[in-house]
């Protein structure tokens, strides 16, 4: 791939030095480290969204929608990073340069990112995403009074929008109710299109244009917002041959294969859990923990959760854990009278994100106890 070591340049991302080819973007370079930069429009196999040429009209459900070609899509803007001089840039389309020092988690970046996330979610049904009873909900009866058309779609537990939103942080205060939803669902033979769920990331447009080279999908601009649709009056007229690439890359439920009940392919590296509060795992900090009931979490040196355990006595349990494991370097706890229930809730959240339980819960010493 690279011609030689002298062709690679070095840059620092959140304190980690990494070597990258000169034409790489910051986002590409970051993917070689353990640093996660959130993005909804970027995709490892596609050129970045900003700069993609719009069309003057698109078709939805055979109806023409006129728009404008003035202006261009700025992308989701979640991948913002901050340079040493304080300036903020998109990681997805900014090339690396020698000696760059980048921060992906500075206060300014985090704040802007959350603002962007709120804008993206404002027009996408988000009531289920911010609901405190979200995990384990079957979406059939709702005690929060959310009407069915505003509840989440069948990608509920695994959609990329949800994962990224959880990582970036959803601000309940800034998000009001979703505006009136008129689901514009078109049922084709192979996949379903729900335009009300589209966040305008243009991944589908780009995969169709650059990977499939058919340009069946396109976008136009309306009031500065991305409106995605077919380039021709019908899918057939748009030269679509139903390859399904657009469905694969869609981060929301806007494009779903019909009969989706199978394991989804996770294209991206899973977002890391958001940074949590943690205390160093040592005898002194353990002494400061109350001896009441609650749930503790143990983290390894990289602050990854390795154990979630409910207990009637937090301090005692932590002392016991200190003698039986040496992997734990940090910990945190919450007090809770309903500790077995709370433990199950936290385990559920964890398994939704990672597709397994924390290593010391049924992996670790229990793993080799299985047949």
């Amino acid at each position, binding site marked *: 791939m690279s011609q030689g070591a002298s062709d690679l340049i070095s840059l620092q991302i959140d304190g980690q030095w990494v070597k990258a080819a000169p034409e790489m973007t910051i986002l590409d370079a970051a993917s070689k480290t353990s640093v996660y930069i959130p993005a909804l429009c970027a995709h490892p196999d596609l050129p970045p969204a900003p700069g993609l040429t719009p069309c003057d009209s698109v078709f939805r459900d055979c109806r023409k929608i006129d728009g404008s070609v003035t202006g261009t899509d700025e992308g989701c803007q979640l991948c913002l990073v901050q340079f040493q001089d304080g300036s903020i840039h998109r990681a997805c389309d900014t090339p690396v340069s020698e000696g760059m020092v980048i921060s992906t988690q500075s206060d300014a970046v985090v704040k802007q990112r959350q603002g962007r996330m709120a804008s993206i979610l404002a027009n996408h049904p988000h009531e289920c995403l911010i609901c405190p009873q979200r995990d384990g909900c*079957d979406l*059939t*009866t709702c005690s929060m009074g959310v009407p069915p058309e505003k509840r989440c779609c069948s990608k509920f537990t695994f959609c990329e929008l949800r994962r990224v939103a959880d990582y970036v942080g959803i601000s309940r205060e800034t998000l009001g109710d979703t505006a009136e939803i008129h689901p514009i669902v078109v049922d084709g033979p192979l996949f379903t299109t729900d335009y009300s769920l589209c966040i305008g990331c243009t991944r589908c447009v780009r995969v169709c244009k650059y990977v499939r080279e058919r340009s069946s999908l396109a976008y136009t601009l309306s009031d500065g917002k991305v409106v995605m649709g077919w380039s021709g009056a019908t899918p057939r007229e748009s030269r679509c041959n139903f390859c399904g690439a657009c469905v694969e890359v869609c981060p929301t439920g806007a494009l779903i294969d019909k009969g989706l009940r199978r*394991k989804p392919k996770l294209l991206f590296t899973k977002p890391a859990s958001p940074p949590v509060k943690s205390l160093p795992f040592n005898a002194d900090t353990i002494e400061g923990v109350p001896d009441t009931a609650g749930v503790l979490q143990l983290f390894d040196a990289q602050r990854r959760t390795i154990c979630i355990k409910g207990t009637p006595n937090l301090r005692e349990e932590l002392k016991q854990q200190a003698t039986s494991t040496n992997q734990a370097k940090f910990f945190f706890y919450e007090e809770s009278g309903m500790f*077995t229930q709370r433990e199950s809730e936290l385990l559920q959240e964890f398994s939704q994100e990672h597709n397994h339980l924390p290593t010391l819960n049924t992996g670790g010493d*229990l793993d*080799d*106890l*299985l*047949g």
Partner: protein
Amino acid sequence: MDTLVKPPTNGNEKAKEFFRWEEYRWTSQDIDWRGGKVVSAGIDIGSVGSKAAVMVDGKLYATANMRTGAGSADSAKKVLDWALEGTGLSQDSIHYIVGTGYGRLRIPIAKRAITEIGCHALGANFVYGSTVRTILDVGGQDCKAIKCDERGKVLNFVMNDKCAAGTGRGMETMAQLLSVPIVEIGTRSLEVDEEPEPTTSLCVIFAKSEAVSLLRRGWDVNKVLASYCRGMAIRIAELLAHVQMEEDFAITGGQSKNIGLVRRLETMLGVKALVPKEGRDPQLAGAIGAALFAKATHEKAVGVR
């Protein structure tokens, strides 16, 4: 205030407890515990039922299932003692006991507590075989969908403990309302000429009043039960969708014995649920998994693993 329309009965009505299911115990006739290397036990204290499974070298030896009383510690001792009744085996001769379930951390006689999610997966692997990949555990008050691998290791799960629709409590409520013994709900719900529409509400509280109005309309009890079971199956099937169900599919927990719920789930999901292996009780999956973990923990401790 319940202005109840009571269904026709056979006349000798007292305040009968239709919700009460039979407690039971069992001992193997083929195994002598004295000849075994490892005697292990698992105790699953659930919100409605307490279960104990005693195994000798990984084979089921004695089991018991009774209603959970007010105190977890008492329930654990009681159910284990009952399982051991008549066997000559005393608690002291058990090499290792693991506790699980809602009350798992208040079982003094257990040496270790393991989350019921892990125990159910391992137990289902024992009850149903190594092909099971998706387990639906419908217990007394909550339901869980668990994804596991061929060894019974948990990969993912969703759990809903906020809604009792479809769980044991929901069925108990219906049994008492309609004066139908709870163990007959399933079979009677299938004895209908044609499958009725499900209850319009999937919430047990509202389904209760809906059931009463259906009776007033002239529906017979079986039809009301069918409508209710169908509604409950819909709600549980939705939960399974969120864990991307894969075959083979199996059901554990008390509701695994509700044929009315099981058949309707199979129809809705388009998948047949596995049938348990001979002599293995899916309602005891949690306790069985705990007993298997107990055996393995003991073997590891004494160095034979």
